[in-house]
């Protein structure tokens, strides 16, 4: 029992950190551009698929972990500059547009990559003893990498010029324009970062889950839940909410069927939406 609980706990932490990265990307784009990016899950999936190809060619997971997000970031630039720029001030229209983009990405992958799921082998195959069970070391490494990325993001937002600009635009867009901040550039960088984060978590998740063209669909909904529970535009809130929800789901699934655990998580979210639309941790 204790070892099952320990494994469930570790899994929940690892998955919570991956979900936090995804939700951070979604939330940054929302907080700045007020766009609900329905294609975010598809970008996560695209990251994993591109990584699969890169690993086929180079045989190296770590190259894929760096290159796949760069590739997806490029897709993000195309999305933002080519498609969304002209409708950025209409939230409902952008939802429909990104829904269309989600379809396009999913179906393109289905055409090229095929419909059957594939696996990416963990680059670190070692397992360590955890009470009576074995636990893959790779997952711990994934957790550490996620934390490092979050710390890096925090520094980027707090200590660099672009980070300062981003926060300024979130606070007051008109004022930011007035002070000479290149708002369009900031938008583009936010979108690049958000897309890259989605793809990065896709690559990190790939050795844990299987890679297929629909893998982003459920993740998108989970990311929504996290962003709403943590508060839209509240990045710290997203990280806490991601780990919290992942814990409730993971540990809850030991005692009740996972479907019921998910239904409770969703019902909880409806309550949050109705009574605290600013999120649990907002003021």
């Amino acid at each position, binding site marked *: 029992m204790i070892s099952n609980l320990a494994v469930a706990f570790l899994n929940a932490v690892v998955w919570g950190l991956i979900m936090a990265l995804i939700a951070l990307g979604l939330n940054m784009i929302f907080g700045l551009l007020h766009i609900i990016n329905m294609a975010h899950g598809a970008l996560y999936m695209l990251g994993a698929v591109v990584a699969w190809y890169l690993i086929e060619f180079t045989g190296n997971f770590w190259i894929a972990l760096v290159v796949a997000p760069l590739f997806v970031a490029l897709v993000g630039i195309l999305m933002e500059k080519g498609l969304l720029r002209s409708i950025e001030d209409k939230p409902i229209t952008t939802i429909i547009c990104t829904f*269309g983009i989600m379809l396009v990405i999913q179906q393109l992958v289905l055409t090229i990559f095929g*419909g059957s799921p594939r696996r990416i082998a963990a680059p670190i195959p070692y397992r360590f003893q955890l009470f009576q069970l074995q636990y893959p070391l790779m997952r711990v490494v994934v957790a550490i990498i996620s934390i490092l990325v979050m710390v890096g993001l925090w520094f980027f937002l707090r200590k660099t010029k672009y980070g300062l600009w981003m926060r300024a635009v979130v606070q007051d867009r008109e004022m930011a324009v007035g002070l000479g901040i290149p708002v369009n550039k900031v938008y583009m960088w936010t979108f690049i970062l958000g897309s890259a984060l989605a793809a990065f978590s896709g690559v990190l998740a790939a050795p844990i889950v299987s890679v297929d063209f629909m893998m982003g669909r459920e993740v998108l909904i989970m990311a929504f839940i996290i962003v709403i529970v943590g508060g839209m535009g509240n990045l710290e809130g997203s990280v806490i909410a991601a780990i919290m929800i992942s814990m409730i789901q993971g540990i809850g699934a030991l005692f009740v*069927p996972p*479907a019921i655990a998910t239904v409770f998580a969703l019902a909880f979210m*409806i309550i949050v*939406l109705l009574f605290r639309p600013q999120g649990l941790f907002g003021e």
Partner: protein
Amino acid sequence: MFLHKGKSFGFILIFSLILFIFIALPFFIDLFYQTFLTELFVWILFAISFDLIFGYTGLLSFGQALFFGLGSYTVTISILKMGLNTELALLLSIIIPMIFSWFVGYFSVKLSGIHFVIITIIFALIGNIIGETWTAFTGGSDGLTFSPPPFRLGLFKVNLIDIKGNYYFVLALVALSYLFLRRMVQSPLGKVFISIRENEDRARLIGYNVQRYKLIAFLIAGGLSGLAGGLYSLTLKYAAASYLHWSISGHAVVYTIVGGMGTLMGPVLGAGIVMSLEHYLVNFLQATDLVVGIVLVFMVLMAPKGLVGLIQSKLKRKEASA
């Protein structure tokens, strides 16, 4: 006044003409295309009911799949497991989704904008998970098959196992629903819906209970989505949990955007064009939704008022130059 009469005369003319074509069509096409058209009618009904809440009232609901799936399951389960007759099952496929849409709507209309979109997705997702999990009742992702017993409707004997009979039955109900919705959006009630879409605060300041009117629109759309689901199951003799998935609502979104929202005629046109396109593409492309997605993105960016909007602006330009 006179202008309005002229407009509605033109509408009656075009409507009867289209209806006449569809009544005559089964004598010239084979059973495969009759089934295809029957499915098209069902999706048209789903799309125009979505147009009422999105196009007219301004509420983007991705939760309509819940009511579609509920309608489809209501028909299937009440015929298969309760042994009810077909006409009663179909009536229930309006009532039961309406009850659920009252529940969902009661909470959802308290929110607006993006929050509304997300809460409707969540409700549909809960329905989908329950449908997938409760396999003893719903058949899960394998679904349930059944065969609807024939019944009498006034002078007509309706046998839905006969493809042509099914075609006319669905056509009649969809045409009636269209007329019902058209009447509704032109009534004072419909004007309130439009005023909410245009400016919610102003509608509230004038003294309308905005949430109540949103709920009314949501109820009617929910009932008609349920009817669409019920007819879909009667056509395919099948229901599955995947009908409850929120992405099914995407169909209605695509048809409405491509055809032109807030026009009723738009979703009809959109469904016809997109479904024909898909039907044609399926011969040499596995991923037909790829083209659907491209069309959707293109229309949102280039012609947000859809095909109907494009045609209208063309006509206006002609009038202006004449």
